[in-house]
């Protein structure tokens, strides 16, 4: 029996029981659908984050406390990075890069009778817009070196704060409370947007020294370094390392470039994609068990047919192929339907959330569904092929 004849034979058996075949494939459809969709979300997330990072610019180097990204953001890490380290770096890198220390803390802000209890205060130096090039001003200026050195209580507020407190009125020159001190607004930052639920515009930039004395902070969260050119990045990294090691150990800080940051984050999101895909794969497995179950029923129901085919000259392999192909068609059919629905859902989702279909997830889902058919169709097919023609013909 050649393949196309087997194909027709198996297809006929499938369409005879349309509803049952459909319900059987439903498990596979849902499994494949979930794999495609969840992996798309994972990849979409990854693509989004990578894009965000690269928008910082290729020359950005971040010095973070702790020896890795995980410990820097993790709980209980002892932060040994202090303002003096940033000053040392600034002196050392005077001809190769811009250096800005960054400290963050949350506090409340008040203007007239408007109160926001959750404002991010970012302490930094006056060269911040030169270091972090994404910082653009909508109104006014960033605070100056003079204001920074004289310890003036001045602030540049984010766009969300601006709309909330000043309702798009003129803000420059107004005094607002940050914590228990009043600051004069000297500038309003351009809108940068909300990423993954975090509003980057609900912030107030203040001189770092003023902030440290007001909030009693001495460590810093980050030192942002912007090399003067991309080719200088390796040199700058080495200079940073040499300078910091005079006071600190290698465990106390880590140096992230856009590249390493992207790698670290893409590792995390890859894990996420795999985990999501893995969970979806379990549902595909359940779908496979459904296929096996129905094939076993089908073999029992068609015992007589099998006996007859054998009596008329079908070899074991003919019967095996017939039933195996039936299982594979069921699961691949389910796979294809699942892929179509998965793609449709991913594209729809990408309109209002991050979602990006990857070829590998489609291929993987397809191969996986075919494999499910082979693996779960094998046992029933073997059982069918081993039936004795006499017993099978006698079966009622």
């Amino acid at each position, binding site marked *: *029996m050649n393949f196309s004849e087997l194909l027709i034979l198996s297809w006929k058996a499938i369409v005879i029981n349309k509803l049952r075949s459909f319900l059987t494939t439903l498990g596979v459809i849902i499994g494949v659908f979930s794999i495609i969709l969840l992996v798309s979300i994972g990849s979409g997330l990854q693509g989004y984050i990578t894009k965000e990072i690269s928008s910082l610019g290729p020359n950005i180097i971040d010095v973070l406390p702790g020896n890795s990204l995980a410990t820097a953001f993790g709980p209980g890490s002892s932060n040994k990075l202090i303002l003096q380290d940033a000053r040392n770096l600034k002196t050392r890198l005077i001809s190769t890069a811009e250096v800005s220390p960054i400290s963050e803390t949350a506090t409340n802000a008040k203007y007239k009778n408007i109160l926001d209890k959750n404002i991010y205060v970012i302490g930094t130096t006056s060269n911040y817009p030169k270091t972090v090039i994404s910082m653009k001003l909508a109104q006014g200026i960033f605070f100056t070196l003079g204001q920074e050195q004289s310890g003036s209580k001045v602030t540049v507020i984010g766009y969300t704060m601006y709309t909330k407190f000043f309702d798009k009125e003129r803000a420059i020159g107004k005094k607002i409370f940050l914590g228990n001190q009043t600051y004069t607004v000297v500038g309003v930052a351009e809108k940068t947007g909300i990423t993954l639920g975090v509003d980057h515009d609900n912030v107030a930039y203040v001189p770092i020294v003023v902030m440290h004395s007001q909030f009693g902070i001495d460590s810093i969260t980050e030192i942002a370094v912007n090399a003067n050119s991309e080719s200088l990045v390796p040199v700058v990294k080495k200079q940073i390392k040499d300078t910091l090691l005079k006071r600190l150990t290698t465990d106390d800080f880590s140096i992230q470039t856009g590249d390493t940051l992207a790698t670290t984050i893409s590792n995390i999101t890859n894990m996420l994609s795999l985990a999501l895909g893995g969970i979806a794969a379990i549902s595909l497995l359940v779908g496979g068990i459904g296929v096996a179950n129905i094939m076993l029923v089908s073999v029992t129901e068609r015992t007589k047919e099998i006996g007859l085919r054998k009596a*008329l000259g079908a070899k074991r392999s003919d019967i095996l192929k017939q039933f195996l192909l039936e299982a594979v068609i069921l699961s691949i059919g389910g796979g294809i339907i699942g892929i179509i629905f998965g793609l449709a859902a991913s594209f729809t989702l990408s309109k209002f959330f991050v979602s990006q279909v990857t070829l590998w997830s489609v291929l993987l889902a397809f191969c996986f569904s075919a494999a499910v058919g082979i693996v779960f169709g094998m046992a029933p097919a073997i059982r069918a092929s081993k039936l004795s023609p006499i017993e099978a013909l006698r079966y009622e």
Partner: protein
Amino acid sequence: MKTTDDIIKMVDITKIYDSLDVKTVALSDIDLVVKRGDFIAITGRSGSGKSTLMHIIGLLDNPTSGKYVLNGTDVSKLAEDELAFQRNKEIGFVFQQFNLLPRSTAVENVILPAIYAGVGSKERTEKAVELLTELGLEDHLNKKPNQMSGGQQQRVTIARALMNDPELILADEPTGNLDIKSGDDVMKTLKALNKEGKTIVLITHEHDIAAQAKKIWHLEDGRLINKP
């Protein structure tokens, strides 16, 4: 064409069913020869070993001991797939229960043996239509078994048995499920086929059916009583 004139040659065929502690001797020391062009009826009561003998003749089962040569090929010790090959080539089955695929048309049922023989789609369909037409079923080519009478169904079975042009037609109680008129028709068809040169072995418990064969052999307790 094979040179031998003995379509079936059995020497000392014995079949013993061996269950846990009971040995049942179903057939013992069967010696028989069926010549080309013979029309043999094998009779016997139920439990006499008729079915077992039919299974062994039909290569659906292996004998426990003895030698069986079918149309010049020793088939006593063949493996399952080789038996399938020989069945497909040498034997046309006509069953009491017809054993047609219920969801397939007459033509689709008739071509089954040709599918497993590897005959091309066009060729086998033409042959099936030709056979069904010869048997008077030209108006029923695309009917399913449940749209046909018992007699018509049995003629489809006969067409299927003839599909690969085997030497031997093995009919197991072919009239058992039919009314008298249809049964007569089937017997007429078998006799006509015998005239055309087919060798026919008929298993039956009905004496008037057996009487229509050229020779009658009687089985009792697994032994052939009146050997030819």
